[in-house]
């Protein structure tokens, strides 16, 4: 008995020394979930940079890239049940409010953000906050802009720089139709609400009120959707495969040269560069049209907040790392240079060396520079509210309401009344 105990002990010690090298002891491993492959790549680069700066506290990421719905649903179940949650996770803005309901199972990151906060657009931090606690690190501003297909517009005698209002836009569309009857001026989305939301922001309103009630049957909304529906009826705007630009079908539709103008947040630039090769050196960027000149010409849309969950293995380090990886100047440069997004650190927007770098592949792709436009509209970028009822509103708009408006061409006033009722019924 005694001898076997001793030999077990010796074996155990031998194994202990064999497997616990001094180098491996320090590395903190974090599991990281995301739904965008580029984000996983970005975080790997930021982890390397972090390790260079902090050789005493190195981190290593185990990234899992999952489909959008799967990742969000899995995270929800993991946080609700307290089992299997990752340390660090990306959450898309339209789903974010779900994770703030009840007692958020996410770590407040205020202490870690403090060092960087002065440079960051405050509203972008606000959308991932609750009761003064900041839970998510933003990626970009997502300012909406217009991407014009210059060649085709010029062939119809249209100068995109002269399109200032939606009336100009419709007029250009009519001109375009005469020369290219099979082309369209723009896309009326049915599975996303980019243009509609931007049109609301122009009129100083939103999908949800300050006291968290849905604002669907409003005169502003009616004006927005009627304007778009009329253009669909006239053949100026069209619905597209998969219902919106940022989908396989949508990108294919644009890449085939079917649309003369795409209204999307700035981050859509990266999709052009990565997935629409035919439009290389054919697209120009400009501020989007408004109802009346003088209205704000942009709104920040889309986004991903990176969070640290309450179940993280080393919360302090995770918090510090996330803050560095998303909010530091290094990070903000990378967000533009690597991913092609408009960084939340707007001070960088004037850094011409970075913004006008001729080597940059995003700059090479487009005929005009995105930051020239961003600086022009900088003070006009509105922000949307993100509240606990936002996921419900967004879901209803993108499955029912916009389809009824732009596919079935039903009466807008009636559609909006029904939408208001259906959404309220789900919420209250």
């Amino acid at each position, binding site marked *: 008995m005694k001898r076997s105990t001793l030999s077990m002990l010796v074996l155990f010690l031998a194994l202990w020394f064999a497997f616990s090298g001094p180098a491996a002891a320090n590395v903190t491993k974090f599991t990281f979930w995301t739904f965008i492959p580029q984000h996983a790549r970005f975080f790997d680069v930021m982890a390397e940079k972090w390790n260079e700066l902090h050789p005493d506290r190195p981190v290593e990421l185990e990234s899992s890239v999952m489909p959008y719905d799967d990742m969000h649903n899995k995270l929800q179940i993991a946080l609700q049940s307290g089992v299997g949650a990752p340390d660090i996770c990306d959450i898309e803005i339209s789903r974010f409010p*779900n994770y703030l*309901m*009840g007692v958020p199972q996410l770590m407040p990151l205020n202490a870690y953000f403090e060092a960087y906060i002065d440079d960051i657009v405050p509203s972008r931090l606000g959308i991932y906050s609750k009761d003064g606690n900041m839970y998510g690190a933003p990626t970009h501003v997502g300012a909406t802009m217009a991407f014009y297909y210059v060649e085709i517009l010029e062939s119809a005698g249209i100068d995109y720089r002269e399109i200032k209002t939606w009336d100009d836009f419709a007029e250009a569309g009519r001109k375009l139709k005469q020369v290219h009857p099979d082309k369209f001026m723009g896309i009326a989305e049915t599975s996303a609400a980019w243009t509609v939301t931007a049109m609301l922001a122009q009129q100083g309103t939103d999908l949800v009120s300050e006291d968290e009630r849905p604002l669907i049957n409003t005169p502003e909304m009616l004006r927005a959707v009627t304007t778009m529906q009329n253009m669909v009826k006239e053949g100026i705007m069209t619905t597209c*495969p998969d*219902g919106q630009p940022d989908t396989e079908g949508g990108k294919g539709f644009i890449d085939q040269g079917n649309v003369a103008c795409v209204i999307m947040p700035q981050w859509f630039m990266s999709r052009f560069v990565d997935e629409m090769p035919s439009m290389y050196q054919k697209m120009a960027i400009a501020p989007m049209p408004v109802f009346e000149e003088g209205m704000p010409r942009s709104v920040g849309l889309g986004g991903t907040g990176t969070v640290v969950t309450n179940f993280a293995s080393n919360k302090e380090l995770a918090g510090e790392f996330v803050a560095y990886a998303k909010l530091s100047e290094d990070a903000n440069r990378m967000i533009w240079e690597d991913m092609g997004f408009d960084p939340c650190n707007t001070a960088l927007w004037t850094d011409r060396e970075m913004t006008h770098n001729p080597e940059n592949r995003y700059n090479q792709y487009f005929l005009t520079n995105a930051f020239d436009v961003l600086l022009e509209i900088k003070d006009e970028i509105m922000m949307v509210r993100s509240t606990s009822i936002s996921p419900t509103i967004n*879901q209803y708009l993108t499955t029912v309401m916009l389809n009824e408006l732009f*596919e079935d061409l039903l009466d807008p006033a009636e559609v909006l009344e029904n939408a208001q009722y259906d959404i309220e019924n789900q919420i209250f």
Partner: protein
Amino acid sequence: MTRIRKFLYNQKAAPYVFVLPFVLTFLIFFVYPVLTTIRMSFQEVLPGMVTNVGWKNYQRLLGDRIFRTAVGNSFRYMFWTVLILIPMPLVLAYMLNSRLMVASEFFRGVLFLPILVNVVVAGTIFRLMFGELPGSFMNTVRAFFGLEPIKWLRQKETGMAALVLMACWRWTGVNILYYLAALKNIPLEMYEAAEIDGANGWQRFRHLAVPLVKPTIIYVLTISIYAGLAMFTESYMLWAGNNSPRNIGLTIVGYLYRQGWEQNRMGFASAVGLVLLLVASIISFIQLRITGVFGKERD
């Protein structure tokens, strides 16, 4: 030791020991979740914050038009799958069972194959087949007949047709297998006797085969009704997510999933689930009553 042995050889205790595994799994994996779901359906369930809301979830369900759409879709799907997947496989099985059939083994295998295809793969393939671009498979078929391409998965009727077609493609083989097993049990002498009595092919099928496989038909009907009402994955895969345009592919379970997981309303989702359980139970009860299964047990 002796006490354990005594217990094991006890004739009174033995039956209970034998049914214990089933009873335990039934209690843990069915009764307990159902009871918790009933409790949750009267609550608002959020992490670290559970509040009782009384009948609010059910009240909301009553006025919910999207839920009605989901119920409508589930019922229409169930109706069409039952209408096709009960008689068609029976006829096919009867043909496969016939001595006149050539290569019946081969056809049985071919018809059974689709169910081996994962529903995720099948859904993806059907989604591509029913694509809205002119180059998609189904639109090429239409073009062959000189018809315009249509947006299959954006219209209520064609979307449902795609769902039903996929269900038929996948499940025909399985139902054939059930029916074949039953048909094989009918002795050949009975067919011969019927033939001698002057029964023609149709009469032999209608008055001999069908009554004798009736228990199997009832079984297939019962599971088909439930499967139809509880369908979710097929729709989820066909529309690449739970969000079909105008909710044309939304089912009851899809709505439960949307409310519970996508919008974090577990309490409301529980109410949806219980309504599904209730509806499925009532229909199955009526159906078993009409087909006389309960009556038989009483005799």
